[in-house]
């Protein structure tokens, strides 16, 4: 009986996490279209509901009623499993994200390792989707995308090592607490190169512009999900945006102090004491999500050799050097971060 009750409360907690994420995904697509629209001096969606607010809902309903096409040559089982393998980890990674002091579903010691494992799994979904489609465009895109994701996982992993050295814990809550003391104590300052590289690698990991070679709509017609339609396609979309929000949350937690107030230790601290930590986390995440959209509106797509050169010849050497620098800084107990 007690075990059952525990199971039910766990499931309820998970629903409380998943539903807002799905809602965020829906309205992130709306925000994307609106923001990029204004950046290009257009209006963006404005027909469904007041100022187009109901557009994401209309899109979802439309998706539901679309036919799911499975190509004749496709491997039917793998074709259906691939989106499942993408959405599963993209949502499950949220289990260890702390939303406020002590507000986390699973407070485990290996939090960061778990995140790394879950984000690495997305490459399987993409590989299987492209292979199972049995379409030339899908296969080309899948190869590009797999090579891109694993290449950018390395600088991302090295950036995480830097955070671990500074914080001395794999638990995300403890990583946040190690940054206490206001905006200048957060890790974005001592780990600045790692911070930039982490976020840019995150953009590449999620296949977003300017690293969206896997989609390349002008040459390989949307790439690995070219054969997908209806709800199966919607899942790819969902997973991509959920991963964007996840990367933003992680960047906010590891480099911008998660739910910590930026005014800690300054005279403004009592003025903003009433603001819940959750608000700060969301505000910091919004910065990164806005950057995602801004990048897409601003930068042209990379060429493949440029993409690989950036990952292997620029990001990896910089992270390696900064790990050494950081090691020396920590040994020297450089104040105020490592004292």
């Amino acid at each position, binding site marked *: 009986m007690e075990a059952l009750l525990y199971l039910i409360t766990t499931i309820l907690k998970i629903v409380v996490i998943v539903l807002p994420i799905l809602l965020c995904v829906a309205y992130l697509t709306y925000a994307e279209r609106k923001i990029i629209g204004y950046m290009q001096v257009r209006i963006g969606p404005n027909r469904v509901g007041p100022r187009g607010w109901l557009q994401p809902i209309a899109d979802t309903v439309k998706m539901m009623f679309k*036919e799911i096409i499975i*190509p004749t040559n496709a491997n039917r089982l793998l074709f259906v499993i691939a989106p499942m393998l993408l959405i599963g980890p993209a949502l499950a990674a949220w289990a260890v994200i702390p939303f406020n002091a002590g507000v986390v579903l*699973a407070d485990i010691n290996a939090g960061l390792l778990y995140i790394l494992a879950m984000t690495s799994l997305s490459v399987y979904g993409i590989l299987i989707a492209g292979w199972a489609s049995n*379409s030339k465009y899908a296969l080309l895109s899948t190869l590009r995308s797999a090579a891109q994701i694993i*290449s950018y996982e390395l600088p991302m992993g090295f950036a995480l090592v830097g955070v671990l050295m500074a914080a001395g814990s794999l638990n995300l809550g403890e990583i946040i607490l190690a940054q206490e003391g206001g905006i200048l104590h957060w890790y974005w300052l001592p780990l600045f190169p790692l911070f930039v590289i982490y976020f840019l690698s995150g953009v590449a990991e999620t296949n977003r512009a300017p690293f969206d070679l896997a989609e390349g709509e002008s040459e390989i017609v949307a790439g690995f999900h070219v054969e997908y339609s209806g709800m199966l396609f919607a899942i790819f979309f969902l997973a991509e945006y959920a991963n964007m929000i996840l990367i933003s949350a992680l960047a906010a937690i590891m480099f911008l102090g998660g739910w910590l107030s930026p005014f800690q230790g300054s005279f403004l601290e009592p003025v903003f004491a009433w603001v819940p930590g959750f608000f700060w986390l969301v505000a910091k995440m919004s910065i990164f999500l806005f950057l995602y959209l801004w990048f897409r509106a601003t930068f042209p797509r990379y060429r493949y050799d440029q993409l*690989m050169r950036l990952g292997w010849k620029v990001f990896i050497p910089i992270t390696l050097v900064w790990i050494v620098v950081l090691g020396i800084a920590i040994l020297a107990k450089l104040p105020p971060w490592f004292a």
Partner: protein
Amino acid sequence: MLANYFPIFVFIIIGLMMGIVLPTIGYFLGKREPDPEKNSPYECGFEAFEDAHMKFDVRYYLIAILFIIFDLEIAFLFPWAVVFKDIGMFGFVAMMIFLAILVIGFIYEWKKGALEWE
């Protein structure tokens, strides 16, 4: 200790379930009118003339192999980084020797042109 991981297990199952439930909804709500043209793979209006599982560039394999080496390196760095503040100078020097060996390998593959894409 292990009980902490139970919610994660449930979460992964629910995440995978999303991948089953959503297409099922679409399957029942959407229409089903298969026809041979519609179900053929997209190839810019041409009929697909051969199996799409074609040969591809060997450099993708090379990238995958290099990835494994570096990913293992990261796996070694993780536990070291967690206890770094406790092991001090000795731990730092030991890891620097390890990193130096890997950097030599990295320079070698760079010079050999393994990272070149034309």
